[in-house]
């Protein structure tokens, strides 16, 4: 039943010209287009108003979180609903550093690393639980982190604290600096995710997600793989929280540790498509469009978005991007493998062989042919 038997057997003996490829000429084109988009985004503060850059900062923050959650759940199969723990720790990391005389913007990467370091011992506890129990335990950790931080009176307790060292900047410089910092964080996050997925670790992640027992028996270090992904996700969410602390000029425990972050990052990934890098981008765009149009109606945008996420995950678990890719074969971030015969696509259903198929929907070992090759070098 594996694709190893199904897809290639038709012709593999007849023709010697089969090639396994990732990105072809179109990949280079997409990469160049990506650089143009990045350059355009970098010039945004010069073109658009400060209100628009603030909106874009929030967009980058949510996209960073979604990319990280997608790494955890879509690629490594770990459903965390407690990533707001690291969002909050990143935000409070910036606050603590700024209170000790650090430049708050320079503190962003340091705070992210602190969040990642805290994730390491936390993972030891959490990894004792599997599946859904892991999910609720991550929530308990986030709850605990919020209570502990709220009880520290020097950090403002439950009412929070303004981030010092930002008032010296002019409003214009502040808007620009925050924007570029957020753009840097989201670009680096996407870069790390893309690099991880193209590395041997990416194959390991997919193998562990699809069939933990088989992966283990093939010699995959399941725990180490998961731990690396968990720590990377904490790093990204910590950076997102650090950006939030700077852009909002203050941190407040009940908002920065809010489960709403988890809800938003999960919904945009579910709608856009888990197990694809493009999915969270598409999902975040849709989320912001809906939020901008329904912002005056209270929480209804989140209710509608959540309902859509539930329906999408039942009808098409690979999300909207998964559905688009299935029909068109378009891949902006080539992280999987495809079979090519000369210039022709031999595989009529390209998703069968790429590494980024959504968790859960695939049968045992889909894409295993391509992966197994690299699992045992």
């Amino acid at each position: 039943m594996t694709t190893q038997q199904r897809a290639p057997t038709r012709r593999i003996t007849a023709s010697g010209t089969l090639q396994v490829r990732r990105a072809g000429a179109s990949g280079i084109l997409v990469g160049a287009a990506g650089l143009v988009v990045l350059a355009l985004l970098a010039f945004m503060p010069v073109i658009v108003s400060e209100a628009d850059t603030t909106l874009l900062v929030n967009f980058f923050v949510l996209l960073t979180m979604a990319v990280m959650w997608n790494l955890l759940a879509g690629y490594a199969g770990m459903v965390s609903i407690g990533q707001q723990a690291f969002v909050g720790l990143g935000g409070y990391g910036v606050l603590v550093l700024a209170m000790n005389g650090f430049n708050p913007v320079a503190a962003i990467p340091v705070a992210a690393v602190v969040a990642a370091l805290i994730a390491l011992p936390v993972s030891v506890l959490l990894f004792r639980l599997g599946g859904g129990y892991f999910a609720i335990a991550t929530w308990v950790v986030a709850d605990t982190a919020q209570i502990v931080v709220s009880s520290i009176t020097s950090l403002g307790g439950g009412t929070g604290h303004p981030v010092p060292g930002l008032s010296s900047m002019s409003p214009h410089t502040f808007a620009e600096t925050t924007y570029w910092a957020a753009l840097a964080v989201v670009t680096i996050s996407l870069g790390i995710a893309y690099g991880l997925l193209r590395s041997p670790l990416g194959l390991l992640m997919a193998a562990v997600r699809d069939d933990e027992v088989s992966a283990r028996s093939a010699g995959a270090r399941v725990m180490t793989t998961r731990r690396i992904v968990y720590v990377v996700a904490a790093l990204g969410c910590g950076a997102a929280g650090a950006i939030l602390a700077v852009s909002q000029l203050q941190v407040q425990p009940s908002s920065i540790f809010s489960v709403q972050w988890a809800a938003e990052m999960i919904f945009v990934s579910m709608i856009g498509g888990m197990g694809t890098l493009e999915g969270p981008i598409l999902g975040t765009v849709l989320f912001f469009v809906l939020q901008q149009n329904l912002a005056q109606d209270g929480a209804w945008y989140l209710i509608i978005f959540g309902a859509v996420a539930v329906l999408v995950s039942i009808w098409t678990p690979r999300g909207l991007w998964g559905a688009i890719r299935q029909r068109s074969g378009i891949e902006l971030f080539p992280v999987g493998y495809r079979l090519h015969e000369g210039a022709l696509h031999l595989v009529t259903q390209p998703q069968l062989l790429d590494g980024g198929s959504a968790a859960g929907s695939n049968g045992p070992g889909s894409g295993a042919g391509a992966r197994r090759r690299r699992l045992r070098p």
Partner: protein
Amino acid sequence: MEWANAIVQGIVTGGFYALFACGLSLMFGVMGIINLAHGDLAIIAAYVAIALIPSTHLPMVWAFVVVVPIFAVGGYVVQRTLLQASLDRSPFTTLLVAFGMSVIIENVLLEVFSANGQSITIGTLITKSFSLNSTITISYFSVIVLAVAIMVLGGIQLFLSRTATGRLVRAVADDREAAQLVGANYRHVFGIAAAIAFATVALAGLSYGMLTEFVPTSGVTTLLFAFESVVIGGIGNVWGTLVGGVVLGVAQQIGAQINPAYQILAGNLVFLAVLAVRPRGLFGMRTA
């Protein structure tokens, strides 16, 4: 003596947590569903009571008679539609769908009932209490809740072990395909299990609404308490859940005794400590 009081109050609260937890346990044990919306369902029950009962001119205690059957039917319907559809996809999808339900319920309640605290007033029963000595005073209502919790847990155990339907539920939980081969309709059995779980969650939610003030976001807190009770007691052990609830309740009361702000923190720390030292819980027998 304040400490003795904390322990007694903790034990009484523990029964309440166990009542919350048994529905969570049942749905995981039979369907393999981790119902992240469990706590929010309990809060819905409380809101349904305050929205529905005043118009019927019945005393508020009748909420149990009205809301619990509604929830049982609702549980069957939700299981046969939404939850079954996600189960047909994968456990992963089911988990995400349950989380989606949780967020949707919470925000709809916020929009409809606002974030103001509410409570179900049932008259004088809630204030009546008896004293063991000068410092230990126990409210009758919390003892009733503890007794109900023990009866529900015992009832579920008896149902599963003694009745034909209970045997069917266990058979489906053990091996769905084999049960199907001998003619069991596992979807219907799942529906029955969900109906029982929803009925217990309504019981728990109504008791919660009578004991304390609640807001739309209370569901998260109650879910975490229920979950902590299950893990502390040991996953898959009915009476372990009761002990887990009591351990959690006592830990919280002792934490509150040290500093009222530490109530929930103390419970979380005991939970994390159990996870570190005995990951299978105090009475955990085996992992699935």
